[in-house]
């Protein structure tokens, strides 16, 4: 059945490809790093894959850190399920899902005296999440907000102070929705005057209805880069679910992009890092965790290439420039922390319902 692409033509034609790739590879001039004696495998969020963050640790400890990034705790669990025990040494996970990982017996206990707990913003220490039965299993490393990002030259910033703008007709067709169901459902709940921590089955009908209204007035539902593209190109003027992690890195280029926390509040996300229980390199893994939460590591993590967001360690401020701090809104954090709530933490059944509601909304 391939006769049609056969023959002399195809031969001549496709021969170029190998040659092209050959040339491409010959341009691989970057020197390979010297062979390290040890390797550390970390399952992380994409901000950890920035060489500027990891290389100093690799050099200092003569170790090669293998990084695999994922999106969403579901994806991480499915990767872990596909792995053998001991394959992974370090895990970065959504702060609200640490208990899930502890429940699955994935994380090792971290001695309290090994962590700079006193330097971490009290609001994001999240003992209820990172600890169980008085034992620490993970530590918060970075946090930020899922709220409203917008183009201040195209919308009235005062409208952005009311969360109900996300389902109102006023900006119909000019809104993008960030494609992650948990914070988005959290935002809807806040808009409805509910607390994210108290969501239950009974709240779903009202939430589903609002999701549907949101979809009707929105232009698209998209991942990070499509959302960013849409906002930067003027395709949309509002991004629901966005925040500093969308706009901070663009602040120099696109000063017209802004974000705010509405009066009803917004959703706060936090990522935690911990050592895998099955890891055969507990000491080295802990060393990596300590590096990440150290002031230097925190400053690099906060401004890593994938996305910017607030470091959990207050002392990171000493290693950040004023411009970086301004982009992160370092000085507004007290107010934001007060006004925001954590992601919802649904049971497995409610989680399924939330995902279904989200999928139904996209298919609507």
């Amino acid at each position, binding site marked *: 059945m*391939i006769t049609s692409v*056969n023959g002399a033509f195809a031969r001549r034609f496709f*021969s170029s*490809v190998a040659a*092209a790739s050959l040339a491409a590879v010959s341009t691989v001039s970057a020197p390979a790093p010297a062979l390290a004696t040890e390797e550390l495998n970390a399952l992380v969020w994409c*901000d950890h894959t920035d060489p500027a963050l990891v290389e100093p640790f690799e050099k200092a400890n003569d170790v090669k850190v293998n990084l695999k990034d994922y999106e969403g705790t579901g994806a991480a669990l499915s990767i872990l399920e596909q792995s053998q025990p001991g394959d992974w040494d370090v895990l970065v996970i959504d702060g609200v899902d640490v208990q899930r990982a502890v429940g699955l017996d994935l994380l090792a206990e971290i001695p309290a005296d090994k962590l700079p707990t006193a330097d971490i913003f009290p609001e994001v220490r999240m003992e209820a999440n990172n600890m169980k039965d008085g034992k620490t299993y993970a530590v918060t490393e970075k946090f930020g907000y899922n709220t409203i990002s917008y183009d201040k030259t195209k919308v009235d910033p005062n409208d952005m102070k009311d969360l109900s703008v996300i389902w109102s007709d006023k900006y119909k067709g000019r809104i993008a929705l960030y494609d992650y169901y948990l914070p988005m459902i959290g935002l809807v709940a806040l808009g409805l005057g509910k607390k994210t921590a108290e969501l239950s089955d009974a709240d779903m009908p009202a939430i589903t209805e609002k999701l549907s209204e949101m979809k009707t007035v929105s232009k698209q539902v998209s991942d990070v*880069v499509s959302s960013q*593209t849409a906002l930067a190109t003027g395709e949309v003027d509002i991004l629901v679910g966005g925040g500093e992690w969308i706009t901070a890195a663009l602040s120099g280029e696109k000063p017209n992009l802004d974000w705010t926390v509405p009066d009803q509040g917004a959703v706060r996300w936090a990522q935690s890092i911990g050592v895998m229980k099955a890891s055969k390199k507990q000491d080295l893994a802990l060393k990596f965790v300590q590096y990440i939460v150290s002031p230097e590591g925190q400053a690099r993590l906060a401004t890593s290439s*994938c996305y910017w967001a607030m470091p959990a360690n207050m002392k990171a401020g000493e290693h950040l420039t004023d411009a970086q701090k301004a982009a992160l809104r370092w000085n507004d954090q007290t107010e934001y922390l007060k006004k925001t709530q954590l992601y919802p933490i649904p049971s497995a059944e409610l989680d399924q319902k939330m995902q279904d509601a989200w999928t139904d909304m996209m298919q609507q």
Partner: protein
Amino acid sequence: MRDMLTKIAAFGYAGLIYGFIFLPVAVLVLFSFQDGRLPVPPFNGFSLQWYEAVFADRKLMAALANSFLVAIVSSVIACLLGFLAAYALARYKLPGSALQRGLLIAPMTVSYLIIALGLLTVLNTFGISLSLWTVGIGHVVINLPLCFAIIYSSMGDHHINIERAARDLGANDFKVMALVTAPMLMPSILAAFFLSVTFSWDEFIIAFLLSRFDVTLPVEIWSLLRSGLNPKTNAIGSLVFLVSVALLAVLELTLFGKTKKS
């Protein structure tokens, strides 16, 4: 007059379609030279900074090398297996040969996503870790049918006499295959090889689902894009494109210019 009109219509149409085909490439290349952090209009001015960034990106360069390795190794295996199978099925009467042909072609009628998921399930079950090898296995699965079909369809019966003559002169099977059959079929074998390389080089979903730390170029570009807009992705896309075009031109003018009549 009528001829003139059809000619204008024909070339007008061709022009439009060529425009359509080149539109995204032109935009891609243009914004790879963007002087600024965003590869979106307006165009701020000409800069080579993103090309420098590409060469300085160790992960991107490693992915480039990985892609090359996977493409070449998987294509060689696919061609070799495809050639042997085609030889056996074209030269010998084997029972159930129609069924065998059907089986070898079958993966071509299945979406890559399904092939990837199936392999992932099996690798999981047997506790095999994901690596570039597993990506390579997947790429052989998708390219083997292609190689087999191309080589098999070019195995004419008129080649048999030459092979028989060689055998009469005392050559064994492997010698016949290596020294007589393969050279006669070289055009199709090369076609199959380069087609495989192209497909493997640009394949995303299998590489995405079956790799772990070492990833291929499309997967690296995917994660690069996840972190937001960046003219670096335009630069790597343009770079691969421009180098291919340059090589294509060189090959056209030298190697294949001479064998045009073949």
